[in-house]
């Protein structure tokens, strides 16, 4: 099978000038200091091939070099050494709606966007009704783009972007757009591409989306490929890595509650002194097991008599999705801080964590009893990681049971027919 994309020993380094000198005057007056640069290595020695018909995902944290790699693939950047070769035609949408102009009507923008993809006006004219139908914008053809809502703009842009039929499609983070129903349409389109055997490169930091569509995922970190293989394997490697980073960060920071953090606020009439996670043995830990116990210990310090307060906690996935949360008010537990200087200990015990492998964040908050005043709020007071054990997929452990019926227990359709005959 021939390779559609060949990437060999690709290197890219950016020279970032410490002062951006774009005026002649600066050049003349600062000619001696022309060597003041900071080097940023974006890609170091990247090599891979994409065989025809493969759906490749590229993932990695921000700044890992995935966008740079994509831009070199699409000939927008030039590599310092090595090469990226595409055998055949490609169309790239690194962003939806590139080339669109808000002052033009939707119809004019389709012609312009189509031209960017290499399509002629005559070709587009035959297709334009279909484009509007797909974007669900039939009644807005002659409206100026600036009067469109952002959702409408994205729908139009996506509908134009998928118009060009090429051997290779390169897409950057386009999955994160549109409302749920339109996203489903996008996914249908990707499924069709897959059925048609097109070669696709999809870049995203949403590994879940990549897992669903990609045959193979490349994981980049600091300009290097650190994992390459089937999506599920790479996904596991990625979660391990996220947890390692979290643990490393934990060791580096003395206090869990960094007061300079913008994710924390409140008047601090009462404040958290410490937030600790402990395992079943009563030891402080950052690694837990699915269905295992976890205890959240919080110590509060009151600076004045605030009376009854509410203490809340929530667990979020690393990307911010709220998974579960509760507070003392909802659970009808009273917390009082009546004397200044008093330390109050609060413990929340979870007997069986219903979470699957991955990185999670604990959010804690102290509020007054009416819930209108925040004393102390920390979005990421602690983080923990669930070990991969069961092989179950997703976020939640279902605690379900399988039952398989036998012929004697559950009458099958044939058994029913036999008795009827």
């Amino acid at each position, binding site marked *: 099978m021939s390779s559609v994309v060949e990437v060999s020993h690709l290197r890219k380094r950016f020279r970032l000038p410490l002062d951006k000198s*774009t005026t002649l005057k600066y050049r003349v007056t600062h000619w001696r200091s022309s060597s003041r640069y900071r080097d940023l290595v974006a890609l170091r020695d990247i090599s891979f091939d994409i065989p025809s018909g493969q759906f490749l995902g590229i993932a990695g944290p921000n700044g890992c070099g995935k966008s740079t790699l994509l831009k070199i693939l699409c000939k927008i950047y030039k590599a310092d050494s090595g090469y990226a070769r595409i055998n055949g035609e490609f169309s790239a949408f690194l962003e939806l709606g590139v080339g669109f*102009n808000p002052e033009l009507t939707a119809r004019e923008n389709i012609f312009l966007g189509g*031209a960017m993809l290499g399509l002629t006006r005559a070709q587009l004219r035959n297709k334009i009704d279909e484009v509007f139908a797909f974007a669900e914008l039939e009644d807005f053809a002659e409206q100026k783009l600036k009067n469109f809502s952002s959702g409408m703009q994205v729908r139009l842009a996506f509908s134009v972007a998928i118009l060009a039929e090429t051997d290779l499609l390169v897409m950057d983070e386009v999955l994160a757009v549109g409302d749920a129903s339109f996203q489903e349409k996008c996914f249908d389109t990707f499924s069709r591409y897959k059925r048609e055997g097109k070669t696709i490169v999809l870049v995203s930091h949403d590994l879940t989306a990549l897992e669903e569509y990609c045959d193979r995922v490349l994981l980049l970190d600091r300009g290097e490929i650190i994992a390459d293989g089937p999506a599920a394997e790479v996904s596991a490697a990625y979660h391990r890595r996220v947890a390692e980073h979290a643990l490393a960060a934990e060791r580096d920071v003395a206090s869990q509650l960094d007061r300079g953090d913008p994710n924390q606020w409140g008047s601090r009439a009462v404040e958290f002194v410490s937030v600790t996670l402990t395992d079943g043995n009563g030891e402080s830990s950052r690694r837990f097991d699915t269905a295992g116990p976890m205890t959240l210990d919080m110590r509060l310090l009151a600076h004045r008599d605030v009376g009854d307060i509410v203490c809340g906690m929530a667990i979020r996935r690393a990307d911010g999705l709220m998974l579960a949360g509760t507070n003392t008010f909802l659970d009808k537990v009273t917390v009082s801080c009546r004397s200044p200087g008093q330390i109050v200990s609060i413990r929340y015990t979870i007997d069986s964590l219903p979470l699957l492998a991955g990185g999670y964040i604990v959010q804690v908050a102290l509020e007054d009893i009416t819930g209108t005043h925040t004393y102390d709020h920390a979005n990421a007071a602690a983080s923990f990681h669930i070990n991969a054990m069961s092989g179950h997929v997703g976020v939640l452990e279902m605690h379900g049971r399988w039952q398989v019926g036998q012929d004697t227990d559950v009458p099958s359709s044939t058994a029913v027919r036999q008795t009827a005959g």
Partner: protein
Amino acid sequence: MTVAAGDRSLLEGIPRPRSVFQRNLNLVRELSITSFKLKYTGSALGYVWSLVKPLMYFGIMYLVFSILLKAGAGTTDFPVQLLVAIVAWTFFTEATSTAMNAIAGNGDLIRKAYFPRWILVVASTTSAMLTFSINTVLVIIVTFALGHLDLTWLSLLAPLYYLELLVLVLGLALLLSSLFVFFRDLGHIWEIVSLVLFYGSAVVFPFELIESHSKKLAELAGLNPIAQIITDLRHVLVQPDKIASMASLIGPLAYVPIGISVAVFILGFTVFHKLTPKFAESL
């Protein structure tokens, strides 16, 4: 997995035209039409401005230079000469000043899409050519109405001079657009250079005025391609027997500006080609 996928009407792709030339040409067309359109959208008069503006401009130039200052009083049909020169000059300044921003002003496109970068420069020049065509039609109508355009066999040379102007403008456009990405001072520098060229190219007075002042100065000024193009256009379009061509004014030196035009084009092309890979990272 997705059961509904089969039933849903999907948007099928269109195979792109195989010819890369056709695709590029199409993109040039769309981009230049767009920039022309954008110039007039939102205004109450819209496209009417594309006719009103040059007419006003011609009128003012005619009033100031031909009537008040009596420039070219000795030569025939100076108003027509003025019109021919102004149309050519307007194309030159519009094309070069918009080209300056053709790359730097489209950072978004350059950072996020792949297409040959020269398309942006050619599109901005094409957009200026649209204005030029409108102006030319206006001039033809005005001068025919006045009965002053003297078309002869010699007038067939005019397209060649316009071609020379186009080559010069494209060269400068490529040069300016690519250099402006890295040196933003170029914008101001070019404004001053344009002003020097405006007076040095005998746009609003006959070239003979320079010659009558000093032969040496005329020989120097005649090397400027714009001066040569404008003078020769006047020669072939207005009155061949009364208005001297550049060759008759400065002799064989008149071929130098043609060489300069071609040289500028080659230089612009080379510089643009060299700098192209750096655009996306610098914008």
